[in-house]
């Protein structure tokens, strides 16, 4: 019991302690300063030369966004092409896996390009080794790199005065991949593979078990892929059951390392923000606001899961181990809750337990976490989302004291506020409209919302069935990728609907804030005075917390009441 708690405290502390030096290193990379990793520079130089890209050319925010969109468009086309033809590739397909169905391929290509990694397929059954590496492993690097580069542009824009240009997307993108993601991946992959995680090109192995059953055991180049899926807040697992699979998460140590990898870069980027703009206190203040919510959510989930399922307690068995349905004995309930909150707050989406089988409040916390989507958040994009809350917070504070709102010496005016407000309501709109539509379809033709209904895609009846649909759209819009996996989501409706939601939920919240930054960078700086709002003060932290709770939590409260809360009160 006590050892389980100690394990999760260790994960969190280790991540925070290492995130500080990593944050400093990231700033050096963003600012093109000298670092130990400069030995990679010739490779980057070579790549830029043959792509005829000048990485030092300054671009304005529109050029940067255009570069990002075209590049991501190429990623998507590449993924589509390979997924639709994987059955005929001549090598790295020992288990003879066939091509994907078109709507599933669309969903998967969007999913991996947008750093969501929602998986409507099962890796061991529907993806060849070639696909796993040349599509999934590759995209998990570059989609994470895209997010980090967008954030770096935002950092730069906050420092600039009367400038139309921001920086160079290509430069920041490639260096995010080669200098941040790649070196850490190599170290973590080695730890994982020495603990028994496979890294092989041999196909599945037929074994006759001790009891005499014949089983076929899938394996493959697991270690390289699992590492980047954890580190880049991707979550696209090698196997269908993600990190609950013993080959994808062999023991308690690997579980700690993988969970650590989920939150490491997201936390480091928050610190990096403070270091970059020469105001480390502000980075720490933002970290504290996020951490307050993070620890609250971990507390709720851990107490729910360790407490166990009262409905099983009524049957008279011993539930001291907690709610073990969908969980592994080698991790236990506390580590499963810690992972659940980590993966939903950072838009990672990998799982080490089945979220569908968590207690109602624990599952509800996971959904709320993705609705806020800015507690550390996905690499890069999490802090961009948080920035939207900051702009709104600054605006509200300005209204309260009757001054023109300022953010780090720049006036926030109608144009910026309009964009921020639109982006803030986009997320609730995508989630609630999607859930309403799917609920309508599930309830159609006279069938009740439940697995007896005509849609047949729910795995659980009543309120929990509703939660399954709510979770899926929340996960898509937040670019998270985890699921209440009981949902039978590999149908054209879910493949296409989630695909569209993922695209909008990914690119609009990057483009909007970058437009704000483009306009802020062009403005004159207002000198500090006694009346200037102090962003690193307790008062502003309280405002921020309220803004997050009001926007994120309240707009979703009715939906949460129909799902997890209603189920909780049913017990």
């Amino acid at each position: 019991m006590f050892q389980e708690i100690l394990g999760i405290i260790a994960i969190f502390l280790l991540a925070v302690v290492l995130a500080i030096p990593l944050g400093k290193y990231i700033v050096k990379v963003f600012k093109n300063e000298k670092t130990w990793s400069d030995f990679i520079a010739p490779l980057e130089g070579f790549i830029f030369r043959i792509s005829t890209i000048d990485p030092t050319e300054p671009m304005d925010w529109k050029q940067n966004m255009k570069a990002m969109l075209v590049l991501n468009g190429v990623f998507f086309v590449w993924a589509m092409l390979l997924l639709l033809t994987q059955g005929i590739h001549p090598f790295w397909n020992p288990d003879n896996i066939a091509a994907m169905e078109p709507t599933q391929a669309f969903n998967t290509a969007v999913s991996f390009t947008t750093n969501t990694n929602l998986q409507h397929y099962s890796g061991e059954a529907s993806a060849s080794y070639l696909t796993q590496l040349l599509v999934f492993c590759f995209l998990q690097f570059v989609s994470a790199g895209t997010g980090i580069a967008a954030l770096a542009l935002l950092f730069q824009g906050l420092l600039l005065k009367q400038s139309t240009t921001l920086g160079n997307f290509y430069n920041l993108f490639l260096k995010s991949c080669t200098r941040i993601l790649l070196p850490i991946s190599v170290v973590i992959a080695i730890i994982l593979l020495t603990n028994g995680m496979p890294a092989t090109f041999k196909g599945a192995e037929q074994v006759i078990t001790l009891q005499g059953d014949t089983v076929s055991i899938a394996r493959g180049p697991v270690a390289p892929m699992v590492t980047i899926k954890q580190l880049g807040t991707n979550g696209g697992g090698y196997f269908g059951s993600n990190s609950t699979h013993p080959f994808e998460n062999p023991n308690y140590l690997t579980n700690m390392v993988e969970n650590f990898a989920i939150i490491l870069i997201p936390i480091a980027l928050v610190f990096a923000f403070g270091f970059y703009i020469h105001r480390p206190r502000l980075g720490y203040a933002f970290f504290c606001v996020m951490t307050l919510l993070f620890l609250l959510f971990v507390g709720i989930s851990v107490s729910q899961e360790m407490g166990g399922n009262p409905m099983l307690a009524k049957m008279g068995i011993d539930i001291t181990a907690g709610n073990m349905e969908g969980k592994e004995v080698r991790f236990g309930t506390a580590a499963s809750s810690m992972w659940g909150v980590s993966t939903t707050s950072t838009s990672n989406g990998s799982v080490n337990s089945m979220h569908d089988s968590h207690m109602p409040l624990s599952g509800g916390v996971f959904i709320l976490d993705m609705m806020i989507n800015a507690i550390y958040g996905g690499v890069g994009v999490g802090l961009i989302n948080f920035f939207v809350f900051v702009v709104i917070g600054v605006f509200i504070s300005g209204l309260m004291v009757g001054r023109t709102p300022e953010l780090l010496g720049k006036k926030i005016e109608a144009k910026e506020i309009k964009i921020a407000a639109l982006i803030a309501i986009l997320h609730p709109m995508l989630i609630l409209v999607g859930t309403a539509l799917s609920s309508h379809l599930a309830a159609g033709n006279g069938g009740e919302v439940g697995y007896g209904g005509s849609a047949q895609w729910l795995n659980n009846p009543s309120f929990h069935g509703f939660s399954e649909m709510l979770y899926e759209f929340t996960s898509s819009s937040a670019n998270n990728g985890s699921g209440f996996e009981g949902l039978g989501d590999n149908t054209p409706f879910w493949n296409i609907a989630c695909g569209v939601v993922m695209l909008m939920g990914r690119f609009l919240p990057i483009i909007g804030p970058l437009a704000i930054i483009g306009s802020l960078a062009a403005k004159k700086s207002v000198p500090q005075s006694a009346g200037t709002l102090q962003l690193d003060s307790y008062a502003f932290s309280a405002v921020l917390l309220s803004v997050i709770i009001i926007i994120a939590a309240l707009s979703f409260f009715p939906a949460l009441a129909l799902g997890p809360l209603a189920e909780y009160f049913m017990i």
Partner: protein
Amino acid sequence: MKLLKQSLVLTLCCIAVFGFVYPLLIWGVAQVAGPNNGKGEVVEYNGRVVGFKLIGQSFTEDKYFNSRPSAVGYNAASTGGSNKGPTNPDYLSEVQARIDTFLAHNPGVAKSQIPVDIVTASGGGLDPHISPQAAYLQVKRIAKVRNLAENEVKALVDEHIDGPLLGLMGTSKVNVLKLNIALEKLAKK
């Protein structure tokens, strides 16, 4: 058009580095540093491979320590959990049935002793472990079926308990496959 060409070449370079060179590098390290050269650690008994150390397998017969229920029947080619919600009536009656079966196979065991892990399914459906408590409860049945002394079988479980990491972090557990192989060896003596 220039933008498209630049993006195309940049994409191809990234595919080469992150989709090809990086995984091959890790694969290369696994050839040297990974257990069984990165192919997954296998367990042998009587000179043949009977499974992988990490991958749980189905043990339902009374003469073996039984493993946890699995939503996919320990099918390691298509893994997953039950994904049943905690209040789902079908799920609850399934658990009730598992409790009844366990009691029927293990006479003398009180219901209040049954630990939750032995009547619930794991997340991946391949959990190689059970809790020590779940193993101890099966000692009496196995000793009887195999004509062994109870304390001998119990000592076997004691030996196979895998405690928390460094004694400080995580759970205690028993690897069912290893325990059953040790049991077979004990029975042969």
